[in-house]
């Protein structure tokens, strides 16, 4: 069931279900981060991370006035890149949570989070930590640190999304029958090109859904995915029409959800769509 030759689970995160109430809307989030074959084969950790701010410490519903969901893939060199992703999520999540809407535009707030994170990396580099790890060719110093970062912010004014690099955020409506991407994909070049995390490259790679939050309107869900999934999606409507109901029916059954998430990740890998780590967050909204 767990898919690893050693019998270890390949899930770094989840699959789990978190429940919130945001501005009167019931928000149920299914989350999992799964180690791809590329990292399984070389014995390294899954580099993806996904977090929700504020965190929920209960199985029951947590009431909040705003919610920030952040996903990042590896930042820094192996074997620390998974930690880097976690720190990147934390920088972004905490900064957006501290935002006093509508005093500061959301993109500016995200830029603050990025600046804080880069400053932290630079400080860390001076202390030498990342350089103790074996440098991989694509990221030998902080100026070359790269990541995919996905941000979804839900608040009283509606939702706002931002992405850097690969990965995608979809808004889902009509119970999964309609899906639209919230940010454009800003590729620099070929599929495996590095998208550095430092300021100038961030500006090039950053895509946002707008300068401010958009009302939920007919949207009844969101899906955030790292490129291990998103790069192989052809027709999003056909994809979500199948996947969305399958996830929804398992929200109250952890064993079924685990089985589905494992089989779903495996399907992607067995068909050789991607050997990369795979993260998916499905956000179901009920008014």
């Amino acid at each position, binding site marked *: 069931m767990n898919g690893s030759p050693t019998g270890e689970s390949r899930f770094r995160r989840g699959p789990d279900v978190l429940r919130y109430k945001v501005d009167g809307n019931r928000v149920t989030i299914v989350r999992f981060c799964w180690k791809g074959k590329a990292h399984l084969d070389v014995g390294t950790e899954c580099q993806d991370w996904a977090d929700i701010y504020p965190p929920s410490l209960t199985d029951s519903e947590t009431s909040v006035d705003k919610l920030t969901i952040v996903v990042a893939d590896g930042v820094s060199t192996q074997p620390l890149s998974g930690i880097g992703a976690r720190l990147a999520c934390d920088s972004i999540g905490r900064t957006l949570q501290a935002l006093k809407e509508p005093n500061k535009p959301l993109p500016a707030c995200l830029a603050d989070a990025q600046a804080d994170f880069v400053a932290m990396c630079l400080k860390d580099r001076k202390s030498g930590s990342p350089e103790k790890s074996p440098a991989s060719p694509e990221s030998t110093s902080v100026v070359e640190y790269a990541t995919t970062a996905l941000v979804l912010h839900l608040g009283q004014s509606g939702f706002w999304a931002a992405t850097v690099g690969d990965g995608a955020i979809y808004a889902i409506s009509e119970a999964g029958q309609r899906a639209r991407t919230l940010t454009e994909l800003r590729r620099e*070049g*070929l599929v495996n090109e590095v998208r550095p995390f430092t300021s100038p490259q961030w500006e090039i790679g950053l895509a946002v859904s707008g300068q401010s939050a958009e009302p939920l309107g007919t949207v009844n869900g969101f899906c955030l995915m790292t490129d291990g999934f998103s790069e192989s999606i*052809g027709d999003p409507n056909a*994809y979500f029409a199948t996947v969305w109901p399958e996830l929804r029916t398992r929200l109250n059954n952890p064993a079924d959800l685990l089985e589905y998430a494992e*089989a*779903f990740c*495996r399907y992607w890998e067995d068909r*050789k*769509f991607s050997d990369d780590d795979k993260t998916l967050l499905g956000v179901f909204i009920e008014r």
Partner: protein
Amino acid sequence: MALTIVIPPEATSRKQVPVILLVDVSTSMDPVGIAQANQGIRDYIEEMKRNEETRESVTLSIITFSNVHRVLVDHQPIDSVTAPQLSAEGGTELDEGLKGLLTLVTRHEAKFKGGKEPLFVLITDGNPTCDEQQWRDQLRKINDATYIGKRRSGGWSGYRVLAGAGEQINDSVLEAFRHDKEKSQVIRLKDQANISEFFKHLKTLTVDVANEKPLSKIVSTGTQVIN
């Protein structure tokens, strides 16, 4: 029993793997080299169509060069490609071939974006008959092209496989194309009769590129990877 995931085929897509063959069709390739290339290309296309992964991802371009270059297949999904018939003519004007390559890559630049690394393959049997400076100038332009040369973000884009058939071509010509050690391969074929064997190796290399794996180095009889 494991859960079966069913996702409609139209819901998924694969990233493109552009493969560009630049084939010398100078008269010195006639008749054995041309016949071998025709056979090899036919088999290669059929094999790429048989494999689900390559059938859904490979886009093929075939450019021939002699005194002129001709684009016989222009960035077509492999599933829709019919093998062209190559015929021999003229000299080995490598600069012409490289001009054709550069034009094709520039024309399809938008389609390359977001795809996997392209695979560029040169097959020739002799030293260029054009002035050395001419083909080196073209090579320099190729090395400056984003999707097949130096990346803006550093490093090199794409894989290069350089195949020389017989004794009439200097290694230095093939070596001039090498960029990244891990992503380029220079192959000596004993003679033109080994060209179709080379195409068998090319099938393996294409799958390697589609899987973003290092290039395999096991080649059949009469062929030798020299780096």
